[in-house]
């Protein structure tokens, strides 16, 4: 009940503030708040792509500039409405962001940063040297935005629009981060192998985020041009982009709230220094930028989490701990795929070979998995098990031979496409997102079973599907016996428990084949027994399981068949008792005389 009141009271309160503030404050402070709002809008986008997505952009001010100049040029020399300027601005910035991102994102983190530095330097140069854009003097006489009969021609009136856009933008970003796509955004820093394991394309997602961030910058630039009625190239320099990064870092990179906190602190302090420094020195402007750079450096060195982190810690301490939320009940479950009939061959490995230069890590291995059986892949250290595992999941390409899954060769497929066809996996070195809850980590697994994208997520039109995904994640958590830890942070669990969460995550994808990389490592005896009985249940449901494992006892009692590798080659295959009796296996494990 209390929550419901908040749900309606908060937006009302905000609206009231937006209307009331410009009536109360003087015009100087209103203008200052306008600047803060415009900056916050840019920083929200930057937090999405850089703070959370991990691809740093130093080109946001250039995007703001493109949008501002576009609308300025269209509405002055071409006499079109500001709304046309907004549309063309979006097309231009999103298009250039898509181009830059498309080229650089595949190459890894710092390429985007470097190319956006160059971008951020080049764009203002173009403004300053293009005659049609007013060269160094800029463009003035930009008309105000009109909403129906009202022309927003004073800072008091445009204040309302700016802050409505900020509020809307923040609402969208907040919803987005909580949605199906948002979970993958928050998982981006786990690396692309993790992303591919639940069928998400890290490259495409980062690119989308970069384009989205440029759209936020566009809104900011459009508002800036029509609020100030004048544009020149100086506020869009590389320096301004660095200032946006500063605002993000000050507020704490991975929280949305830092957009507001950071921009308010930055602009407030800047304004304060502009008042104070001229009293102390006659070179105020130079000292001002030096002060900011030093402050930035100190924060980076001493407070990498920004000022936002201690604040949010304080907030969680002050606020009574929220009880586990009640998951809304979905009308039906997520769709499940039909399992292949028992005994049918689902994975066929023929003569698989992997060479690393001169080293042959896997040498002509062939075996087959049939639907509904549990097969163990064992071998001493260095036998090539992990390489084999990587070949099957598509993490590494085959040098020779074929692997086919459900009668379809996987050699041309990416890791992600293999995962989407129903191959789920766990990791030898657990890959959970430590700052997300256990439930959210498991829900990542069900990612490919949902369809709601960016827009439906951001606009909160995904509630029914979200409920289904969460119910599914909860169901899998119950299966591995962790339902009562669903709302703890994954990073706070013991290693053995984390392995179980990974298994729940792979189960949430409704897999045909589940591949476990040393699942029993770090588990206690009771946990191992629970895991064995879980795998047994899966087998009875028709799921096929491939286990790479060191723990002989665990494997022997569980599996239907074993494949034994040594020095890259298969040395034995068969039922556990047959394999145990095989002299070659004994030699491999115990030495040649055994």
């Amino acid at each position, binding site marked *: 009940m209390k929550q419901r009141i908040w749900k309606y009271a908060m937006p009302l309160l905000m609206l009231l503030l937006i209307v009331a503030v410009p009536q109360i404050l003087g015009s100087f402070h209103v203008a200052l708040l306008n600047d803060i709002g415009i900056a916050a809008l840019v920083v929200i986008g930057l937090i999405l792509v850089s703070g959370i997505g991990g691809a740093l952009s130093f080109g946001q001010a250039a995007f703001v500039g493109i949008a501002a100049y576009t609308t300025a040029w269209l509405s002055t020399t071409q006499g079109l409405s500001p709304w046309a300027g907004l549309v063309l601005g979006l097309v231009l910035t999103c298009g250039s962001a898509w181009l830059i991102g498309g080229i650089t994102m595949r190459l890894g983190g710092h390429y985007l*940063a470097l190319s956006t530095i160059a971008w951020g330097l080049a*764009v203002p140069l173009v403004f300053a*040297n293009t005659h049609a854009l007013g060269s160094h003097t800029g463009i003035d006489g930009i008309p105000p935005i009109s909403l129906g009969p009202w022309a927003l021609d004073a800072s008091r009136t445009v204040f309302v629009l700016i802050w409505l856009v900020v509020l809307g933008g923040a609402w969208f970003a907040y919803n987005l981060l909580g949605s199906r796509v948002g979970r993958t955004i928050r998982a981006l820093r786990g690396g*692309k192998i993790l992303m591919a394991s639940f069928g998400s394309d890290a490259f495409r997602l980062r690119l989308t985020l970069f384009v989205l961030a440029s759209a936020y910058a566009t809104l900011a630039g459009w508002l800036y041009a029509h609020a100030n009625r004048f544009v020149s190239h100086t506020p869009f320099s590389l320096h301004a982009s*660095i200032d946006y*990064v500063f605002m993000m870092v000050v507020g704490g990179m991975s929280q949305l709230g830092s957009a507001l906190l950071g921009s308010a602190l930055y602009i407030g302090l800047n304004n304060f220094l502009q008042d104070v420094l001229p009293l102390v020195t006659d070179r105020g402007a*130079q000292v001002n930028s030096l002060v900011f750079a*030093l402050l*930035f450096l100190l924060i*980076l060195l001493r407070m990498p989490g920004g000022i936002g982190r201690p604040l949010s810690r304080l907030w969680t301490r002050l606020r009574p701990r929220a009880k586990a939320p009640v998951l809304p009940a979905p009308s039906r479950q997520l769709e499940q795929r039909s399992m292949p009939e028992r005994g049918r061959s689902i994975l066929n490995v023929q003569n698989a070979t992997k060479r690393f230069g001169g080293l042959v890590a896997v040498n002509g291995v062939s075996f087959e998995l049939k639907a509904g059986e549990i097969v163990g892949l064992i071998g001493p250290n260095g036998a090539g098990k992990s390489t084999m595992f990587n070949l099957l999941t598509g993490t590494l390409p085959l040098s020779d031979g074929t692997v086919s899954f459900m009668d379809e060769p996987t050699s041309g497929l990416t890791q992600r496409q293999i995962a989407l066809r129903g191959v789920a996996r766990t990791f030898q070195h657990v890959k959970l997102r430590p700052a997300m809850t256990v439930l959210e980590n498991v829900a990542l697994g069900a990612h490919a079973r949902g369809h709601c994208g960016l827009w439906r997520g951001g606009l909160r039109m995904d509630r029914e599907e979200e409920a289904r995904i969460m119910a599914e994640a909860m169901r899998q958590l119950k299966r591995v016996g962790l339902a009562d830890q669903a709302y703890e942070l994954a990073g706070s669990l013991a290693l053995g428990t984390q392995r179980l969460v990974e298994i729940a995550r792979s189960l949430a994808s409704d897999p045909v084949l589940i591949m476990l990389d040393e699942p029993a490592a770090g588990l206690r005896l009771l946990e191992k027994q629970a895991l064995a009985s879980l795998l047994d249940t899966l087998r009875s449901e028709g799921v096929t399981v491939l286990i790479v494992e060191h723990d002989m006892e665990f494997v022997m009692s569980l599996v239907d068949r074993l494949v034994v590798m040594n020095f890259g080659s298969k040395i034995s295959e068969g039922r556990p008792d047959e394999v145990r009796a095989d002299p070659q296996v004994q030699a491999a494990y115990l030495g040649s005389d055994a």
Partner: protein
Amino acid sequence: MILLTDGLAWSAIYLIIGLGLVLIFSVTRVIFVPFGSIAVFSALSLGAMESGHLPAMINLLGLFVAVAVLMELWSIGRQRAWGRLPGSLLRWLVVPLLPCLLAVWATGQDSEALRVVAAILLAVPLGPLIERVALRPVAHASVLSLLIVSLVLDLILAGLGLLWFGPEGIRTKASLNGSIAVSSNLVINYQTLLTIAVALVLAVLFYVGLQRTRMGKVLHATASNPVGARLVGIRPAFTATIAHGISALLAGIVGVLVSPVATIYYDSGLILTLKAFVAAIIGGLVSYPLTAVGALLVGVAESYASFWNSGLKDAIVFGLLIPILVIRSGLVVHHEEESEE
């Protein structure tokens, strides 16, 4: 043809910067943005000495020395390792101030060669000092945090440069005057030849030095496997100091080579560095030969672009990034998983 020779001279400059950037990036994972500013300071120091003033670089070094010594004292005091005190004072207080003495002496003398040497040597301590003060405390952060730190460092250097060197641009005397006429319409300045020759010599020295000498092998080892290098007893802080020292030396050389051919302002450094980045990126910031190819491309393109539209020449050079990155993504067959946190 004039454009081409001019372009080659700039290529040579970008090659030297690129070598320094690649060295630092491969050894410490830092994309060292302040490189250009160090070069600029060496040029401005030379200019100041030519007009008979003490270079403001001395203030800058003094500031960094003070901070570095304080940090050393703090860490020694906290660990109670007072035995390390003399060594660290020698390293961070005495050695960095030696070039300052030389510069003070050289300002009074009437020898351009001496001033050039002093300007180059003044730059050398700045690299290791910056590393000690600002980069070592965050040495384990991700590449991206390191990039932000290094970009901010450049802002600070540029700010201090404006404060102490002033906003005026300078152009120094050419180290070598005169020119040779190759044909009736092609005249090459000695300065151009000197620049190209220096770059070639440095590139060869780099190549031989990294392959043959013990120090080169240490740097090479750290670059290709930092953990492994640590395990065999190579201290990362030490290699970082060396790498920064070498590249600051390169920056000093760049400074005195550039200042006779272009007017240098306190903030010209960033653009210099970034153009060299465009060159170095083709080799992924780790390959020296590919950096040379990139430098050639950037230098020549810039020279032709400035002929066509001098206002937009920088924008055009940065525009080169796009084809270069496309080539780069063609070169990279697959990209290892980077674990980011």
